[in-house]
């Protein structure tokens, strides 16, 4: 694997070096949704692999859905954390054309958070049943506070 740096000029909103020893990231970036595919191509061209893709339900504090990507490489480990905030209900461009790993990972984000990826070859649920009517990792689904209280009268 060649140890070249990804060419990310002009694609990022924010970018900073981070402390790997402290939180596991060497670099931290923020980007707009429209740059996601170009960034993915840049990482792919530099020999990186998509280590992880997930989302965060930030509707409560930021009124956004956040996509979280980590890119890394074999050998000279260098973990880039890339976050991308989406308007609630907005979709994001797929990065499957840049890396096959995104196929299943984007399906999982869709399954768990309901975020759609435009251009994904086969965007469907992956872990939950196909006929589910919920997205399980949204913060307003399945909170333990909302569980029905045990019916004490019945036990008595």
């Amino acid at each position, binding site marked *: 694997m060649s140890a070249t740096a990804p060419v990310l000029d002009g694609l990022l909103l924010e970018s900073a070096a981070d402390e790997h020893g402290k939180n596991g990231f060497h670099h931290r970036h923020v980007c707009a949704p429209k740059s996601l595919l170009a960034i993915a191509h840049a990482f792919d061209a530099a020999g990186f692999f998509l280590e992880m893709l997930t989302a965060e339900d930030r509707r409560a504090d930021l009124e956004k859905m956040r996509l979280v990507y980590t890119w890394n490489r074999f050998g000279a480990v260098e973990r880039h*954390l890339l976050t991308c905030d989406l308007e609630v209900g907005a979709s994001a461009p797929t990065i499957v054309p840049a890396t096959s790993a995104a196929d299943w990972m984007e399906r999982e984000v869709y399954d768990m958070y309901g975020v759609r990826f435009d251009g994904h070859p086969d965007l469907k649920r992956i872990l939950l049943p196909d006929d589910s009517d919920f997205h399980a990792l949204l913060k307003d689904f*399945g909170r333990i506070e909302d569980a029905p209280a045990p019916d004490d009268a019945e036990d008595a």
Partner: protein
Amino acid sequence: MLEETRDDAAMGERYVLNMGPQHPSMHGVLRLRLELLGEEIQEAEAIIGYAHRAHEKMAENRIWPMFLPNTSRVDYLSGMIYNLAYCQAIEKMLELEVPERAEYIRVIASELNRISSHLLWLGTYVMDIGGLTPFLYAWDDREQILNILERITGSRLTYSYGRFGGLTMDVDDVFVKQTEAFLERMKGRLVEYDKLVRQNVIFIQRSEGVGVIDAETCRRYGVTGPSLRAAGVAYDVRKDEPYGIYDRFDFEVPTATAGDSLARYDVRIREMEQSLRIIAQGLKDLPDGPIMPDKPKKKFKPPEGPTYFAVEAARGHFGMYLVSDGGETPFKIKLRTPSFSNLSAMPEVLRRTMVADTIAIVGSIDIVLPEIDR
């Protein structure tokens, strides 16, 4: 048949074969939907989720320490490694010091767990492709490890041995003696496996050149662990992003170049040898002292922000992405499991292979479905 003279129409109609979710060779609940032309796979789709237990959702519904028993149930075959990974991730977030003795015991226990996981794979994989006898040997060896770990942890598979800053229980001289006896025993057993399996003509014919995954395909799908190393890439989190005290140990990262099922077998066997080396060094250097810090953390609020922590599990790169909002409950815990990424490459690898090789290929990447489905 050569591509240019190939006449698909003459081979009849395409048909669909479902393999799993209940199938004796699937080791769990994987369903493969295979589109066949004759005996050849045209398209393969892996359908997962049958063992989804909502671990990540559970994490958000309880305080940080309460997620600890979940961890070993994600990949129940290398549960020790997962359990300790969570402890180490929390220690990183809270900047906790771990006593030396606990660090050494963690390494020894993790490597024993890695060997038991590889032994289970060895036995079942060889059985899948026609050899029953090695299964009985591998199971016997694995039983020794389970007995050793049961004695120190109280569990045989779903260990919850780690604590934030150390371990639940110390080890004693009996543990050291038992482990040394196991190391001695395995020396001979590895020779035996070589004769019983590696020199078996049928085994070689069923695995050599079958299910080739090259380094570039591994990178595109994020395939890690023995499957990646069998394709010639010496990526091992223990070496490349050392955690705990792995940087103090002298061991190699075995690789092969062929990238086929046989290469994955070779890599795992040699990995077991390296794990034995690590354990021997750990036992030799095992210091006296406490196994927990003076003031253990029982309830805590990690500082706000994300943390990523990776370990080398038996099947590859296991990463935890933990997000704290400064509260007692995790905002999010994402489990990046190696088998998920490893399996995602299968549809591409299975294309244009023979249906009879399906198990010889899928089995060789050592999938654990509960780890994929989480």
